[in-house]
């Protein structure tokens, strides 16, 4: 039996402002095993990004329990949360969020600086080759296409050898071909390296190319489908 990567029990998140309270997640229970490739789907405002942010230790839950690779982020201070983020989790965003003043290789090297890992010099280069950008190492973000930018972002997310890769609408800014390429890359990483991947997406076709689709609506799990391949 595979160990759990993520365990969420009655996970609830409420965003409060002086004007209103928005319930983003309503006591959802989710268990994701290590090595699973999961798509979180649902309409805008369903709670997909909120779920990823909680799992990625970027946000704090309102109530319930959450375990990430056996750790309970609620018990940790900000310093420990950043340690978990850098050691266990890789993040990929819809808008890539690469640093414009750094070239592709330097962008991928960036998390190594924060991990104080100055020795692992070959991994960023190898990862960029792995995502098909071995010839674009010294190109700056404004010299790369949308698909290439996301590949750099994926290489950056993988450079510290995370156990979970979280991707929030990673293909939202891409054409079909590039989007398929990114999902093929995810599939490859999942199969060959056993990486746990959770992708929030609107794209039904790509969502259904994963192992499992969790469909959220209005902060609740509407459907949890394991897909037979």
């Amino acid at each position, binding site marked *: 039996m595979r160990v759990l990567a993520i365990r969420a029990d009655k996970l609830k998140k409420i965003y409060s402002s002086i004007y209103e309270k928005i319930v983003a997640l309503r006591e959802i229970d989710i268990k994701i095993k290590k090595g699973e490739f999961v798509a979180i789907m649902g309409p805008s405002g369903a709670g997909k990004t909120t779920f990823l*942010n909680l799992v990625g230790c970027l946000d704090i839950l309102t109530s319930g329990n959450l375990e990430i690779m056996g750790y309970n982020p609620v018990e940790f201070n*900000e*310093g420990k949360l950043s340690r978990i983020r850098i050691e266990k989790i890789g993040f990929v*965003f819809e808008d890539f969020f690469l640093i414009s*003043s750094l070239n592709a290789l330097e962008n991928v090297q*960036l*998390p190594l*600086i*924060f991990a104080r890992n*100055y020795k692992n010099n070959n991994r960023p280069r190898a990862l960029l080759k792995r995502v098909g950008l071995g010839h674009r190492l010294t190109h700056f973000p404004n010299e790369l296409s949308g698909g290439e930018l996301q590949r750099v972002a994926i290489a950056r997310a993988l450079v510290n050898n995370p156990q979970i890769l979280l991707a929030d609408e990673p293909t939202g800014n891409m054409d079909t071909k590039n989007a398929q390429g990114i999902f093929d890359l995810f599939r490859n990483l999942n199969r060959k390296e056993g990486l746990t991947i959770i992708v929030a997406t609107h794209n039904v076709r790509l969502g259904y190319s994963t192992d499992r689709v969790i469909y959220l609506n209005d902060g609740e799990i509407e459907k949890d489908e394991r897909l037979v391949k």
Partner: protein
Amino acid sequence: MKFFILAYKNLKRRKSRSFLTIGGVAVAVAVLVCLLGFNAGYQEALTSDVDKMGYQVIVTAKGCPYEAATMILSGEAGLRFMDEDIYNQITSDPDIDKITPLLAQLTYDPEKQGGRGGFTNYLGIEKSYIELKPNVKFKSGGWFSGDNANEAIMGYEAAESEQKSVGDNISIPDKNITLTVVGTFERTATQEDGTVFLPLKTTQRIFDVEGKLTGIGIKLKQLENISEFEERLYPIASIQVISMNQVKGTILNLVNSAKILIMSVAFIAIFVAIIGVINTILMSVLERTQEIGIVKAIGASRLDIFKLIWMETLIICTFGGIFGSIVAIFGGNLVELLVRNVMPYAPGGKLLLITPELLLFSFLGVIIIGIISGLYPAFKAASMRPIEVIRSGE
């Protein structure tokens, strides 16, 4: 790639803004270095000037003692006349080690400086003058052949600028007299370099001031006995005794008072530079809010962000410190030239003394300023919550 390179690349993104901020810091550093260097240099140059004078005490006709002292220090004429008898009267005082009579005169020569005109200082002296001045040495030639000879010894610069050497003749405008150069002095780095020395009697004859002096230079056996010496001279109503140490102290006090005022201007420049640095870094933090959030999302801790922003501030201040020091070293001569033109009396030698210790002091000062001014922007950046800043950019 390390923190430093990352911080450097961040600053390179807004080149002109970073450059201008570095410029602001550099100006503040240059001003500070020049001011502190001027203070040390002026003190050293004045002390050197006074020491090179050879005499610790001067006796002049009654008047403003400081005006008289600066006139003698700067080699200017214009002093009131006193009777030569006074010299004969005090020369046997028991406290006097060495004594020399002085008669300074000034003439305008329209032919000087290639026809542009200029003043020439003449100083009537006796042989005791050389005995009082340890740094005055002959470069060529020797002493006058007689007390009333029409001969001249030229200071180093006077001889160089007039292209005169031993055996050449010089003339004093409007006096219809020709003097033969019998000697030239070596460079002393004092006002004496530009002076033409004549025998005392010759000077009195040529300028028609027989039996008159403009000053008496005295070296006492014991400087501590100056009060007793002054008391003994007190009955001579027409003269005053000036201690060069007192003059030096008074001039330095005046310079120090001016320094306080100028230093406050320098501190305003530094304060403005600090505000500039804080503004630049804060703007850069606010512009990069989302980026800071992303960097935190990929694992940077609060301390990492704090370090990064702080390092950017330090880079600005370090470059500002380096450029400011370079500007001070190379622009110091220009400042010295300006100061010399503005000040009524400036001692010879280098007025601006920029030492490695001074540069190090100013450099460390600017680094401390950098550390302080980086605190707030760094703290602000480090306090950003990743989720909020990422969302704010969506």
